Structure formats: C-alpha cells, structure tokens
C-alpha cells in the first residue's frame, strides 16, 4: 500500500483545493489573519436608549461607534439608520453583550469578526456596510496574511484526499479536533505514501500523515500527526514535538518523542437529534451547577442576615412611629375634644375599656359579616351593602387608631410625670409631645429589639423578651383604646371620662401647653376630677373597673346630662 519515498525527495506540491481544504480545517479563524491593532482601553455602554463602544488604540487614536435613536454614528458622524429592534441593532447589541460577558478582553477580536446580518435593506444596509468597513479598516488594518504554504510530500490528487476523508469520517473528525485545538501547524503532508527519515537526517517542520507509513531513524523537528497508517520509531529516531494519532499504529516505546504522545479524541459525529439531546443535557447540567453555586453562595454569604433584618426592623419601627405620630397630630388638631375625652375615658376606666375593647375586637368580624348577610337578604339594603363592606373595616381601623393614639397620649403623660433624663428639653405638658413620647414608649420595645437583633445571637433572648413586651403593650393599648372609643362613642360622650374636661372651652387651643389634661377645671364636679397618673397623693384610689365613673343614678356627673 505504501510507496516508499526518501526525505530527500520531498517536493512541495499540491493543488489549490487541498490547500484550501486543509487551511480551512487546520487554521482557525484569526490565526492566519492580520494582527489586530492593540486596544489599550475600551468602554461599552448598553442601555435601552443606546448601544455603543469607544476604543482607544495604543497609538492614541480612537474609535467611537454608537447606535442611538435610530442612527448609527461613527466618531459622532451619522453613517445611516437602523430599525429599532431590527436585525442590525440586535446583531450589534449581541456583539456588545458578548464583549461584556467575556472576561478576557476580547473586544477587538469580536469587533474584527463581526459581520452584518443578511437581508438588510435601505438605510440599515448602508449603515451596516459602513460600520463593517470601518471596523475592518480600523480594527484590522491590512489584508489578511496568507497562510503558510503547506509543503506536500506526496499527493496523488484532489480526489484521493476527498475520497479518503469521505470514506474515513474519523479522519475528518480528527482534523476538526486539531483545528479546534489550534496548536498544530503542518508544514509537510503525506497521503497514502511512505516516508523515511534516515539516520542523521532531519525534517524541519510538523508533519501530517494520512494512511501513510512513517519511518523515523533521524530527527523530525516538529510535531507529527498520524491518521491511519504506521509509525516506526528507530532507536535513534527523534520527534522533537508532540505525537498525536488516530486509527494508526504507533510503537509502544515512544521514548523518542520529546513532547507528548496522545491519541486524538475525535469530535463526535452526531445526528442533529443526538446533538440536540446532548446540548439539552449539557444545558441542564450547567443550569444545575449554577443553581447549586447560587445556593451555596447564598448560604455562605448569609451569615449576617441579622444585621439587615435588624436594620429593616429598626426602619420599620421608625416608619410606624412617624405614621402614628402624624395621624395623632392630625386627630389632635381636628378633633381635640374627641381625643381628650377618649384619653380621659381610657385613663379613668381602663379595665372597662379593656374589656369593651377586647369584646369589640372579637365581635367586629361577626358584626361585619352579619351586617352583610342582613343587608343582602333585605333587597332594599343592597345599596347600603356596597357601602357597608368597605366602610365598616375602615371605621373599625379608624377607631383603633384613635384609641391607640389616645392611650399613647396617656402613656406620654405618665412618662412626663417621671423624673427622666432626656425629657428635660421637652415641654411635656403639650398634648402633642405627650403623644410622641407615648408612641416612643409603645413602639420603642420593638425598636430596641431590632437593635439587639443586629448584635447577633447573643442578644436573641433579650430581643425575644422585648418583642413579647411590645406585643403585650400594643395589644393592651389597642384594646383599651378601642374600648375607650366605644365607651365614649368616638369621643363624643364623656360619661366615663371622669371630671369635666379642658375642652369645654370651645376656643381651647389643642397645641398650647396644658397644665394637666386630666386635672379638674374650674367648675368641676364634686368627684374632684382625679388625675389617674398624677404622682403622690393625686393618684386615684383605684384604677380598675370598680373605680370607673359610673354614677349610681346613671347621670353624668361631669356634663350634667340626663341619665341614659
């Protein structure tokens, strides 16, 4: 099968077709192309409005390309238009996306290899052509270098090579592997022939042999790729580069090979269906790896979640305080008499207010539903039903807020009678200040718990206890407040509010300092108008339900209203 040839008889010859075929297979894009100009700086911007790139070359020159508002601009000058969302813009954005996604500074290579999409017309086509030409001119100046001529030692003709590649697809796949690898540069080529390098002789350059017998008793100064055929390596035979083979016989003793010696793992020749399945499985595997990585990453970096949640809790407490303070000040401004009566009711009858509030809270939902049913079954009530459904919850929520703010004021008032540092600079006689101080106390437990949460696990028990205290305070204040609102009929009935209140004067300024909103005013009743929070002897004898103002005769001792 092999026709022996001596290395001295090597004559480079061949045909353009084989040169082209091998060049295409063995020379990767770029390897034989012109040297890209060195870019020292690039800036890519991709937004909904613009997709552009700026380049600065090593010689100081620059290039700026921008797709913006339907125009393609090169160095600021328009070279044509593009259809937003069209093929040209999509291709350009994809290019820039690849440039950003890569992590190895491959912008120039990407720009050099960019080609406009087919099927463009009109302004888009001219813009794409101008852009492509400019990129080729600026990024890759000079014509592509011609590949090194491949010296062929033996070739029977084009048909032999093509026939062999068709008959032996493993060769083609092996060549593809070599092409993808990109490191093999054959300078000599042997096909279906016999080549001997005699002792003392050298062949300089890498050798590709297909279905050939290669005898090396001298030196092959380069790599050897053997596809089919046979390699015999003499005792003095040397291959200075790598040896790679497929479907061929190579000696077991490859000590004469200075480089690596490996069989070629040809790329797989898969059907389109098999290829699709393979891509699917690889995508699934990659996605799974990504998910695992993401989960692992989130686990490793989540050690300090207490800080963020604690800060979020602190912020939430602050926002809650601000909202309630704003609502409280608004109520104080617009309904000063009502909030005063609710406050007095909560202070004078806290036990009764608490029970009424709890009952009201529990019964509110059944009342709402019952109301809906009654209104629905009575055909005449259907129009009212449309109002009842949203209005009732709003009224209940409003009552709870009013009651909560009123109780906050009571708490603030109580605090103002304590000799506490930090309150020295405040005029705690003002109802507004009292509301603010009370809200700080009621919500403060949650805020402090959040601060402790930031401190880490060591403070968790304290944070838990503070949260528990906050819940108890909030539920208690909310229930008493709601009950006080119900007892006072939203602050309109002072029956349980103790003595006559300060707002009997219609010209009363709710923002002005008040000596004591729970103290009797001139003309107060015989009950003495007790201040339930006043220090010392001013404390009421009792503060429980049994002490609630509930005149035996049913009359209101403060207002003189008729008994109900």
């Amino acid at each position, binding site marked *: 099968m092999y026709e022996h040839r001596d290395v001295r008889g090597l004559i480079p010859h061949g045909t353009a077709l084989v040169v082209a075929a091998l060049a295409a297979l063995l020379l990767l894009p770029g390897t034989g192309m012109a040297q890209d100009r060195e870019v020292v700086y*690039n800036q890519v*911007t991709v937004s909904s409005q613009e997709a552009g790139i700026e380049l600065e070359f090593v010689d100081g020159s620059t290039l700026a390309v921008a797709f913006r508002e339907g125009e393609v601009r090169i160095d600021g000058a328009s070279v044509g238009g593009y259809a937003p969302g069209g093929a040209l813009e999509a291709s350009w954005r994809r290019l820039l996306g690849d440039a950003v996604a890569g992590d190895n500074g491959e912008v120039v290579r990407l720009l050099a290899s960019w080609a406009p999409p087919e099927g463009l017309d009109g302004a888009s086509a001219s813009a794409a052509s101008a852009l492509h030409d400019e990129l080729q001119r600026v990024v890759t100046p000079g014509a592509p270098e011609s590949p090194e001529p491949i010296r062929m030692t033996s070739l029977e003709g084009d048909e032999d090579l093509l026939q062999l590649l068709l008959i032996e697809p493993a060769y083609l796949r092996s060549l593809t592997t070599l092409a993808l690898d990109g490191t093999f540069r054959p300078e000599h080529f042997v096909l279906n022939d016999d080549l001997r390098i005699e002792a003392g002789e050298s062949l300089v350059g890498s050798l590709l042999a297909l279905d050939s017998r290669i005898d090396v008793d001298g030196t092959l100064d380069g790599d050897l790729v053997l596809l089919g055929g046979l390699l015999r390596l003499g005792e003095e035979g040397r291959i200075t580069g790598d040896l790679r083979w497929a479907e061929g016989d190579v000696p077991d003793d490859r000590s004469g090979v200075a480089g690596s010696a490996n069989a070629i793992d040809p790329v797989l020749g898969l059907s389109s269906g098999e290829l699709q399945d393979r891509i699917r499985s690889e995508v699934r595997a990659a996605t799974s790896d990504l998910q695992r990585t993401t989960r692992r990453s989130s686990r490793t970096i989540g050690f*300090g979640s207490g800080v963020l949640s604690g800060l979020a809790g602190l912020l939430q407490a602050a926002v809650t305080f601000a909202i*309630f303070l704003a609502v409280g000040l608004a109520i104080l401004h617009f309904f000063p008499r009502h909030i005063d009566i609710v406050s007095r009711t909560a202070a004078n009858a806290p036990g009764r207010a608490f029970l009424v509030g709890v009952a009201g809270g529990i019964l509110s939902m059944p009342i709402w539903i019952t109301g809906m049913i009654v209104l629905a079954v009575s055909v005449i009530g259907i129009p009212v039903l449309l109002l009842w459904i949203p209005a009732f919850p709003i009224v209940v*929520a409003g009552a709870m807020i009013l009651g909560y703010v009123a109780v906050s004021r009571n708490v603030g008032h109580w605090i103002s009678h304590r000799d506490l540092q930090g309150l020295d600079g405040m005029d705690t006689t003002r109802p507004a200040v009292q509301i603010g101080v009370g809200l700080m106390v009621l919500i403060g437990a949650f805020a402090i718990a959040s601060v402790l949460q*930031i401190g880490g*696990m060591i403070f968790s028990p304290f944070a838990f206890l503070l949260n528990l205290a906050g819940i108890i305070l909030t539920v208690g204040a909310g229930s008493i407040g709601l009950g006080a609102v119900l007892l006072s009929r939203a602050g309109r009935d002072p029956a349980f509010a103790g003595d006559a209140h300060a707002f009997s004067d219609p010209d009363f300024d709710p923002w002005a300092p008040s000596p004591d909103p729970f103290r009797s005013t001139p003309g107060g009743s015989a009950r003495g108008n007790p201040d339930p929070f006043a220090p010392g002897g001013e404390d009421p004898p009792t503060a429980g339900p049994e002490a609630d103002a509930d005149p035996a005769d049913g009359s209101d001792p403060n207002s003189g209203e008729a008994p109900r």
Partner: protein
Amino acid sequence: MTALRWSLGALLLLPLALAGGEAGAQELTTAQFERRASGESSLSVVVRYGAGEFELAPAASGLLYRAVLHYDEEDFEPVHTFSDGRLEVGVEGTARSRPLRQSGSDARFQLRLSRTVPQHLRLEIGAVRADLDLGGIALTGMHLSTGASETRIRVEEPNPAEMDQLRFAVGAASLRGDGLGHLNARRIQVEGGVGEVRIGLEGLRREETEVQASLGMGALEIRVPEGVGVRLTRSSFLSSLNAPFLERRGDAHYSDDWETADRRVRISVDSALGSVRIARTDG
C-alpha cells in the same frame, strides 16, 4: 419585627397600602470600562458603590482593570476616571433617585484588578452585598469602608506585594474575611459600629502582624492559624471573651507558644458590648 408587624398589622394596613407598592420592572444599563496594562508601576483604586451587589476578583492577564456595571439609569450614573495611575470607578445617585428598596435591588458591579501592578485599594460601599476575591492581586494597602452591608472577603493566593495596612471600617454591617494572612499586611485594623466581624488570618507568613479591633456592639471573631503566637490585650465595657487557648499573664493574654513561635500576632481589642472570640484555625 415580626411581632410588630402582626400586632400592628391591622392598624398599619391602610397607611402602608397607601404608601404604594413596588416599582415597575427595572431597566438596567450596562457599562464596561476595560484598560490594558501599559507599563504602570502602581495604581490607586477608589471604588464608590452605594447599593447592589459588588464583586471583585483578579483580572485576566494583560488587563489593568475591568469594571462592568449594571445599574438603573433612572437613579444612578456611572463614575469612571483614570489618570496618573489613579482609577476612580463606581456609581453615584442622581437627584431623582428613588428609595433604595426600589432602585438598587438588581444593580451589580463587577470589578477585576491586575495581578501584577501594585495597587492601593480603597472601597467605599453602602448597602451592598460584596464578594471580594483578593487572591493574587498585588495590594500595597487596602481600606474598606462599608455601611449596612454584607461583605465576604476571600484570599486564597498570596499577595505578591507587601501590604502596610489593611483597614476595615464597618458601620452596621457583617464582615467575614477568610485567608487574610495571605494579604501579607503589617497591620490589620478593624473599626466596627454594630454588627458581626469575623476575620481569619489563614496564610499568615509575616513574623510580626498587628491586629487592632474596636467594636461598638456585636460579635467579633479572629481566627489565628496554628503555630502562630498570639498576644491579646483587651479593653471592654460589657463584652465576653472566648479564647480558650490563651492564658492570662498580667495585663495580656498569651498563647503557650508565644515565646517560641516564628510568627506572632499582637491583637488589641476594644469592645463595648458583645462577644469577642479568638480561635485557632488551620493554615
């Protein structure tokens, strides 16, 4: 704060509902700044980043730096200047910035820095989740200043340069650093407000390293490799110390190999409220 949400839920429902919901989907802008190394002898890097995710890692061969920013152009604009060996990069808010919750959630910032050019790194980051892989980057100094952030630092390769000072100033944040010994820093300084600071000195190779840590409230953990002598001095108000391998002698705590170790760490801790833990680690 779950408790507050539940207990005040009914009352808060209305105002919170009126406060508005989440913003619409973000349209992120991508900006990349990439420069090849061209004979720079040193580099000073300043990073300013307010919100989002931040990732720092070594650059590919030949690159001086590479910054890729994904940000909401409605609220932020990129900052990038490079001159005289000084790089300033990051994003800054615009006047029309929305609340952080709405605008910074998907923002990302990837920074790659040269392995070969010696550089001083200054990071000023806010509400950021940061992942810093400093392995192999030539650092002569580093200053990390954070607000409410979660920061993870990994160093798995030695610093080719010698670092004078490694400084962390953390507000209310979590900071975790592994392999900080690889950074070859003469002094490591940690200033913490509230939060959790955990640093490991794996890879330590200097004969003498100084660690100064002050923490207002929270947990501080310092891991020292086996075979490294430790001397600890502490000033605290209400904080606990957990250092089972240290023995108190006079005003300081010493490891039993303090006199014989060829590498030593002097740790000074000032903690107001919280816990301090000094532990041994491999490496």
